[in-house]
């Protein structure tokens, strides 16, 4: 129960770049994904800070409008395609799915490595597009994206490759979860992180090809003039939006579902209580994944869709709220009568719930037709999106990083520094983004390099918040580096968790487990049926 006492270098023993570049070990591939995506998170964050800097003044001050447009495009495209989509699934998922289900590796290790290198190829192509950087916003709406002078075809191709990598990873995980579970690991004994990852993988496999084709068509429109989205040839620019959002709406669940899985792992461990309503949390992941495919039209309520389409998409959108609410209620109920400690993973998990509730409760404003028409394309949407994605997914990601850091590296983090970083992130985040709800309701449109002076005060507050947030993230990164360099040796199971990954050494051996474990119980058997033990 207290884990393996071994304290070797485990899977990290082999050295040299070849041992990484050619590795078939899912853990090493996961680590490579994590390092790459965190790097992009930091770069994307720098772009965000530059945006906030420019918005300090209503008039263009530091950059031209075009430069600002490039910055918000790069911020969006990098954060979405290079960080948040791959970070948890491909990074933490690669590392922990096989360990959670008691397997030695994923189903197709070679494909796994290939998917990482396709990802790298993708981001190299994205970098190549910087010769004439994109200025369309991460949504690539036609006909602007078909006309602008930027390297749209190049960037589309880069994102096509990244999408391919995402498909291959999802495929690998689906098959892994179906076929490689340890003996006794029935579906209802799966950790909830696996349920989240399974639902995510389905979305990746089914939705990503659509956006792949869409970007292909966009590139072809620029290269050979196909007529799909070109109004001059009878094409329909709104069809582009349908295709784009058929992927890009479900993909926010690719981002959030694994984070919800992490939270479902962390909460019981630090409350010493079984998760409340396991089945409801597990199946609500699948429900969110499925309903997520029915609601893409809510991004297009002002795009002059048919009235019936507007009504249907609005109606269905509200039903995403139900499984999401169920999860939140279950997490809160798990805390009830727990024995809660507040180590950094738990702090981030609770922050996830806190911020995600705000993100979730501002959803109905955007789902209801009449208020959507008012708030669409204003800062209200920006705030809602960041509360769910940054306040949700990224906080879940941070929770996962702090939770599994000892397992991945064999070192413990400095808890005091981690808490300081957490406090800065929490305060900075809310100051930055809550003001955006207000300025959005007052009518400030998004993607504005310059704005009318009446929105000035909110923007200054928001920029100050972003500086605090950035400082918090810097402290966190510094803590990671210090932890790697000088952290205390981590025991096999520092949090006394019950799921399988903690039954290995820290860091785990290449084979994960000396013997493939036989599973006899679910991973949440905390607490006692009759109260305190003798």
């Amino acid at each position: 129960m207290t884990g393996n006492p071994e304290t070797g270098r485990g899977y990290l023993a082999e050295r040299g770049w070849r041992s990484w570049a050619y590795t078939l070990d899912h853990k090493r591939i996961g680590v490579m994904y994590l390092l790459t995506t965190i790097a992009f998170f930091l770069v994307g964050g720098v772009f965000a800070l530059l945006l906030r800097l420019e918005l300090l003044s209503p008039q263009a001050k530091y950059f031209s409008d075009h430069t600002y447009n490039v910055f918000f495009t790069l911020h969006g495209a990098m954060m979405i395609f290079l960080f948040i989509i791959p970070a948890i699934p491909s990074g933490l998922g690669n590392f922990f799915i096989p360990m959670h289900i008691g397997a030695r590796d994923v189903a197709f290790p070679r494909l796994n490595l290939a998917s990482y290198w396709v990802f790298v190829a993708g981001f190299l192509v994205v970098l190549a597009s910087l010769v004439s950087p994109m200025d369309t916003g991460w949504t690539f709406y036609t006909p602007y994206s078909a006309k602008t002078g930027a390297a749209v075809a190049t960037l589309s191709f880069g994102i096509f490759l990244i999408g391919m990598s995402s498909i291959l990873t999802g495929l690998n995980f689906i098959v892994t979860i179906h076929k490689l579970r340890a003996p006794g690991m029935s579906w209802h004994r799966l950790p909830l992180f696996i349920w989240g990852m399974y639902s995510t993988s389905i979305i990746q496999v089914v939705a990503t090809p659509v956006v792949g084709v869409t970007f292909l068509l966009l590139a072809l429109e620029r290269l050979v003039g196909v007529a799909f989205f070109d109004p001059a040839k009878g094409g329909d620019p709104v069809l582009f939006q349908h295709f784009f959002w058929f992927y890009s709406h479900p993909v926010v669940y690719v981002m959030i579902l694994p984070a919800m899985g992490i939270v479902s792992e962390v909460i019981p461990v630090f409350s010493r209580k079984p998760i409340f309503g396991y089945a409801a949390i597990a199946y609500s992941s699948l429900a969110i994944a499925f309903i997520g495919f029915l609601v893409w039209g809510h991004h297009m309520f002002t795009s002059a869709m048919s009235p019936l389409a507007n009504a249907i998409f609005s109606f269905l959108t509200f039903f995403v709220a139900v499984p999401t609410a169920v999860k939140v209620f279950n997490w809160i109920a798990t805390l009830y009568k727990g024995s809660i400690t507040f180590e950094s993973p738990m702090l981030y998990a609770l922050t996830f719930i806190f911020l995600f509730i705000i993100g979730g409760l501002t959803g109905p404003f955007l789902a209801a037709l009449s208020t959507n028409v008012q708030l669409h394309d204003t800062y209200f949407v920006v705030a809602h999106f960041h509360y769910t994605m940054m306040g949700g997914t990224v906080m879940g990601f941070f929770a996962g990083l702090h939770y599994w850091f000892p397992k991945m590296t064999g070192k413990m983090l400095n808890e005091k520094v981690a808490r300081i970083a957490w406090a800065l992130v929490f305060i900075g985040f809310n100051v930055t983004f809550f003001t955006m709800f207000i300025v959005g309701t007052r009518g400030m449109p998004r993607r504005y390099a310059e704005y009318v002076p009446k929105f000035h005060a909110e923007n200054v507050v928001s920029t100050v918040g972003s500086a605090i947030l950035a400082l918090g993230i810097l402290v966190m990164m510094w803590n990671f580096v210090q932890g790697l360099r000088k952290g205390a040796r981590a025991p096999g199971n520092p949090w006394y968790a019950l799921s399988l990954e903690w039954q290995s050494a820290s860091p785990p051996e290449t084979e994960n487990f000396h013997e493939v474990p036989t599973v006899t119980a679910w991973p949440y058997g905390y607490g006692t049926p009759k109260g305190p033990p003798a």
Partner: protein
Amino acid sequence: MGEILSFGAASGQAARVDTVFLMILVIGGFFFVLTQGLLIYFAVKYRRRRPDRDNETPQITGDYLLEFFWILIPSIVVVAIFYYGWLVYADLRIPPAGATDVYVNARQWMYEVRYTDGRTAINEIHVPAGKPVRFILSASDVLHGFYLPDFRVKMDMIPGRTTTLWVQPDRPGRYPIYCTVFCGAGHSNMTANLIALPPAEFAQWEAGGERGGPEGKGPEALAARGERIMKSAGCLNCHAVEGKKIGPPFKGLFGSRVTLEDGTTVAADEEYLRESITDPGAKIVKGYQNMMPTFKTTLSTEDVNGLVEYIKGLK
């Protein structure tokens, strides 16, 4: 607080949107207090007080009745919110009779305004206060947006299509219009103003010389332009104002319901007329052949708008 939530709606419709906003805010506020309250209360109350005692928690794994209710109650709440949101929206989409039409065409990065009497303007739309005004929106190059925050409405402007939006300013005033769909370098400077004048001032402005009168060398009224184009472009070779020729007649067409060859019916609105001119094969009227050539390249947006306006007048 009113200012922060941008109350001070400029029209009755905007006030109705605000009630939906408020309703969601109250419901959301209730669930916010409930969930965050419990979250914080549990976190504080059940924090571990004695570090040495570990597994002292009860093994609660679920409660079907509780879970049933917290699936049921949100479901009912969201259906209610949907219903009110949709109701107000549906009402907002139907313009009242007697609205003044104003044609607005967007291009990078300005709004080209054309009144039915032929006067034009850039980025300034004068309308009488207290009367409904209907915007007929088009775009020349890329997607643009038409957002009136004080009226809580917006509509995308889509190249190759015609979209509409209406407002009724209750009070005179100057209301900003923002572009909300990213359209390039000048996006954030693509703003305009809706200037609602008291009826008397509006009449004065309408008659005023600064924009040139409707007669003489002044610009041509849209409907007059349409009548001229209709003769010169050869429309009347195949269509008659009244009575069936090779193509369907124009009189009474606007606002009617047209039966198509596959039996479905469509409303003959601006978008239908525009489409029938630029893409005649798209909707074939029952009883007619698909033989009209497209006028997409031969007629400008102005010409098409003129034709539409002329046909609208043939009641």
